């Protein structure tokens, strides 16, 4: 670490043009402050900031139009913040971090926080929307055609301009040939002499009305759907653009009792705000519910439900073995091959490299399916080739071995590539120096190459461990968690925590997102702790060159 004399407040030092400001940047960075502003730098800065303003203005119009003031505020603050950051000479690290971080916040951090917040709700199938949504759904679902009522031919018409005039339903009854006009005020008969009716029974023209064609009518779809013509027994509603029927909502919400009443059976379902459902006195609940806060219920269920917590530790242990095994094996194999091919005397390394990355270049879900077939007991290549009759996915340990082997195949090209890159980045002088000193290749590998490789790759190994810890696809597309004990179809030998708990959350009657989010938070806490501990160990390596 170089020691710079510049402390806080130290004045002009290098070919400086302006006084350095105090505080930031610390010690060794200070010299950078005095670098001259180049023409290219200036131009780039102008263009980029110009783009920022351009985008901000482009983004502002729709926000203003939609009266989305919060969004506009965020936009203005972000833009101003960017200007401040890049025009100021302070906060140098932030200049490098902010571009990526903005995207990160919007498209990763926000979704994660939003999802985590659902862990405190009953969010899931049957409980997705608001109470109002549920009420609308219940009422709409109960609309029935009044028995024996007429089925009308419908023509949508307006009084006046097709795009803006008030809508009217021109209804003709195919049986009686009577024509009437209906709007929110009710039905009115129209004299037959004032209308033209096509042979199919549709009104094609009427005095004082403009009949809309489908194209014109479809633009006003929402108004048409919302237009309900009241009748004595119920209401005439449109069914598409060419039919209408007289129907009645059998169930209706009554705000007074906060309940749903069925006018046919007289049954009532009262809102249960804790469960987010309408429940009848006999315990029957309506299927359409709404999302409510359930506090820590999902979390306590994870801990107390014996079906979830029972096989937890066994699954956790295998989960660790799987993540460590996948990461370790791919790293060892990838590095070994990279080392083998890393020699200036090797010819054809290009070809080797291209062929070796092919497994990684293929869509992994396709290759997982191929591998699953290869482990088939009767038809699979593995058994056929070696003359075995092993029921690979039917036994605990063979299934685990098979899964790890598949992971190895899929993952080692990645490690190979990264190790190749890292080896190239290690200065040749270092290894040469040791070989001049008479060290064997193994010694020079241990003393020079491996430590440097680890500096470069250990953060990546941690990331890879974390990824594999939650690698649901690797399991779902091969063993699906199996083999399962005959008396327990919920927990299999190759299940990871994530596949196991999602089976519980999504395999039940309807997906339970809230539950799944709670489980994810638990898993997240475990992986985060492990990763944080191993991360703190990298500090030493990180400072090799510092």
């Amino acid at each position, binding site marked *: 670490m*170089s020691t710079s004399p510049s402390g806080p407040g130290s004045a002009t030092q290098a070919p400086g043009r302006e006084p350095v400001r105090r505080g930031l940047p610390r010690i060794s960075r200070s010299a950078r402050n005095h670098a001259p502003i180049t023409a290219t730098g200036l131009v780039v800065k102008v263009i980029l900031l110009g783009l920022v303003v351009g985008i901000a203005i482009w983004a502002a119009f729709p926000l203003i139009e939609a009266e989305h003031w919060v969004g506009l505020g965020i936009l203005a603050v972000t833009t101003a913040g960017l200007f401040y950051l890049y025009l100021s000479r302070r906060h140098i690290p932030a200049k490098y971090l902010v571009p990526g971080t903005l995207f990160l916040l919007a*498209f990763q951090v926000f979704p994660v926080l939003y*999802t985590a917040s659902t862990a405190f709700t009953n969010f899931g199938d049957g409980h997705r929307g608001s109470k109002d949504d549920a009420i609308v759904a219940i009422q709409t679902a109960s609309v029935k055609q009044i028995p024996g009522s007429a089925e009308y031919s419908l023509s949508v018409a307006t009084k006046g301009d097709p795009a803006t005039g008030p809508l009217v339903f021109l209804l003709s009854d195919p049986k009686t040939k009577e024509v009437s006009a209906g709007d929110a005020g009710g039905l009115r008969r129209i004299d037959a002499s004032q209308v033209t009716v096509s042979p199919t029974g549709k009104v094609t023209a009427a005095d004082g009305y403009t009949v809309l064609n489908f194209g014109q009518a479809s633009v006003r779809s929402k108004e048409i759907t919302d237009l309900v013509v009241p009748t004595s027994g119920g209401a005439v509603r449109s069914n598409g653009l060419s039919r209408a029927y007289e129907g009645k909502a059998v169930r209706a919400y009554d705000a007074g009792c906060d309940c749903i009443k069925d006018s046919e059976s007289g049954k009532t379902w009262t809102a249960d705000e804790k469960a987010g459902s309408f429940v009848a006195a006999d315990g029957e609940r309506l299927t359409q519910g709404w999302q409510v806060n359930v506090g820590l219920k999902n979390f306590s269920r994870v801990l107390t439900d014996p079906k979830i917590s029972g096989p937890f530790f066994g699954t956790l242990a295998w989960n660790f073995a799987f993540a460590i095994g996948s990461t370790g094996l791919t790293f060892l194999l990838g590095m*070994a091959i990279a080392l083998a091919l890393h020699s200036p005397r090797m010819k054809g390394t290009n070809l080797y490299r291209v062929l070796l990355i092919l497994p990684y270049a293929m869509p992994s879900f396709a*290759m997982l399916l191929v591998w699953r077939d290869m482990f088939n007991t009767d038809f699979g290549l593995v058994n056929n080739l070696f003359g075995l009759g092993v029921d690979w996915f039917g036994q605990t340990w063979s299934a685990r071995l098979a899964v790890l082997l598949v992971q190895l195949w899929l993952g080692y090209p990645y490690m190979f590539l990264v190790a190749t890159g890292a080896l190239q980045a290690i200065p040749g002088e270092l290894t040469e120096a040791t070989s001049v000193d008479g060290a064997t290749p193994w010694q020079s590998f241990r003393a020079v190459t491996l430590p440097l490789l680890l500096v470069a790759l250990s*953060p990546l190994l941690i990331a890879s461990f*974390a990824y594999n810890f939650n690698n649901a696809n690797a399991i779902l597309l091969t063993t699906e968690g199996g083999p399962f004990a005959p008396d327990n179809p919920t927990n299999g030998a190759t299940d990871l925590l994530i596949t196991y708990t999602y089976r519980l959350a999504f395999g039940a009657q309807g997906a339970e997102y809230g539950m799944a989010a709670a489980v994810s938070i638990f898993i997240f806490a475990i992986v985060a702790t492990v990763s944080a501990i191993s991360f703190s160990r990298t500090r030493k390596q990180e400072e090799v060159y510092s």
Partner: protein
Amino acid sequence: MTTYADAPVANRNSAGKSRSRWFAQVGWRHLVGVLAVAFSLFPILFVISAALNPLGTLSSTELLPTGASVENFSNLFQKTAFAHWFLNSLLLAGVASFASIFLSSLAAYAFSRMRFAGRRVGLLTLLLIQMFPQFLAIVAIFLIFTTITDLYPAIGFNTPWGLFLLYMGGALGANTWLMKGFFDTLPKELDESATMDGASHPQVFFRIMLPLVAPILAVTGLLAFIGAINEFLIANVFLTNTESKTLAVGMFGLVAGERNNNFGMFAAGTLLTAIPTVLVFQLLQRYIVSGLTAGAVKG
């Protein structure tokens, strides 16, 4: 291919022992290479055999094709929008990998070379965010992009730009870690001396650091490219228009029909998908194996 490193070794060689020496120094490397290639390729043979099989089954009982026909390939272009998918993927993966290595190299530089409050916390956060299962976040993605589509259809659902933005959200993830590791291996004296010579921090970054880590940029770029080409989960919810789909989404559709699948066309498509990756790799090879690093470190 003789280089400085080999010269002394070659001098010490005696002609008679050259074969065994050749094996000790180079031959075994080829052996490892061939074995590794065999391991890599044999599952792919099934894909080739299925692609050539006119019946189009992905059954692993037959390693060698039972029939040879290009029917699957021609069907792919005639009956599906494969060409569209291919171009979409190339465009998206190209732009996204380029932008994402740019963003992550900026961040990696800061994380590696600067010391600031919250540095290690920031790094750890980057890692931890990646661990949250993505398919749960789909609900939130719908939430965000429903709003965006209403306000700005140009970057909403079914547009490559919207998906590009989403991918940028993940740009800092693993790539930053990877690159930071490599920045860490570069001696600090390099940029410090440059700074002393009066270079500004952007100059140090663009003129000194980036050229030095060219192999890593190439590797990371390739990984990002492959990642974008193969990304399925988000692209599947994002792109529903046949013509706006990417390879991964479109091809999955070939085998996703209920209970009856067209593995033949799918296998053919899988093989074609690998082509851009291989081409990009070829393009980047010279950076990956360039001697740039060694030269620069000396200077």
